[in-house]
């Protein structure tokens, strides 16, 4: 029986971002949430053209500026200074969310507190009674993007699973997550529930299952072994 008290380290936050970047093909329009998702842009090689969108009306976000070339008028949705790539464009907030709500983003990558096996996402507040929780653009992105991937640690700092049968926190949107990238694994949300696609180096299926609060399925090919 594996030792569940010692969590496998798995991937670092940067390594999760790097893993996600591998799966983003050239030509996609992508919105990256705050946290691990923001790091993803750094791992898309510059010769692979991906257009990054930010809620505050920027299309074509480039890497962070050097400290001495910060333009205070150009920030991303996390309110950090950014740059604009050639081919970028500015739009106002209603047009920016027309892009989001209208289904024009190929992908949105968000962080999460919890993801349920039916794709429910909880990522904006941990308290049902916290009426002042800040939602920002999370609900618009979750409802609007063509694909929603989540990037997060597999468990809380206390070791509680974040992949669950049903979210305990207030939802951001129901049945919206397609895939979850964690420090331990890459997992698809399917009609049958969570499908484990791969594990981080040195992490077993069983280690991932033990840190997941609902059943993980294996691909059909694995199941026939």
């Amino acid at each position, binding site marked *: 029986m594996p030792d569940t008290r010692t969590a496998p380290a798995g991937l670092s936050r940067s390594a999760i971002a790097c893993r996600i970047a591998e799966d983003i093909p*050239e*030509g996609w*329009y992508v919105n990256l949430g705050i946290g691990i998702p923001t790091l993803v842009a750094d791992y898309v090689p510059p010769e692979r*053209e991906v*257009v990054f*969108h930010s809620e505050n009306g920027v*299309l*074509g976000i480039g890497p962070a500026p050097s400290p001495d070339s910060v333009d205070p008028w150009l920030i991303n949705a996390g309110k950090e200074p950014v740059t*604009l790539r*050639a*081919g*970028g*464009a*500015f*739009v106002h907030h*209603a047009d920016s*969310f*027309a*892009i*989001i*709500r*209208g*289904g*024009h*983003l190929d992908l949105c990558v968000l962080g999460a507190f919890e993801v349920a096996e039916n794709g429910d996402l909880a990522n904006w507040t941990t308290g049902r009674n916290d009426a002042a929780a800040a939602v920002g653009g999370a609900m618009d992105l979750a409802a*609007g993007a063509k694909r929603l991937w989540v990037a997060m640690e597999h468990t809380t700092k206390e070791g509680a699973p974040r992949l669950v049968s049903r979210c305990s926190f207030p939802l951001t949107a129901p049945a919206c997550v397609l895939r979850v990238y964690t420090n331990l694994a890459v997992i698809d949300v399917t009609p049958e529930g969570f499908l484990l696609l791969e594990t981080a180096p040195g992490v077993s299926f069983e280690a991932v299952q033990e840190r997941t609060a609902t059943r993980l399925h294996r691909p059909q090919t694995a199941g026939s072994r």
Partner: protein
Amino acid sequence: MIDKRVASMAEAMAGIRDGSVVLLGGFGDVGQPDALIEGLIAQGASNLTVVANNAGRGRTGLARLMELGRVRRIVCSFPRSRGSVVFEELYSAGRIELEIVPQGTLAERIRAAGAGVAAFFTPTAVGTRLAENKEQRSFNGRHYVLEHALPGDVALIEAWRADRFGNLTYRESARNFNPVMAMAARLTIVQAQHLVELGTLDPEAIVTPGIFVSRVLHVPYAQAKE
């Protein structure tokens, strides 16, 4: 490399299916994607629904497409204008369906489709026969009618400048329906007077960002208006 430029009209028109809803930019002749309409005539798709402000004039362009029997239905604000002879003939003969939509409601329904809004309440047409049999409701003591998003399968767009990302600018009043239609179709095809290098369009002055654009065909002015 993202490159939405296509080399031929055939490539621009590839995949337009029978039964498609086609959004056609333009207000009268201005901003109308003449070359793409010719391309659509040659491409062959039929049983089309055309969404456009006008119902064509003369015997070329949209009028020709209709005359060939390829348009089952037209959604527009101003079908009956000088020279709309083909439409008049077909409509009198019961060979084309027509949905009249007030011009602003038409523009807003198309924008709603592009913006992910399913339906909206507008004061336009309340108390007229164009609101008959439509849901109505009062807000703050004023009456409104519920209108639904109008998405396209294909949008044919005329632009002035385009880059390989599909970022677009328009020329003067040729802008009209083009930017809203570009947002609202699954396949947005642009004829552009000028192709420019990436990075030469001012990011503050791009009217349609490339995210809304699928293909760009270079059609210089003389060719478009021949």
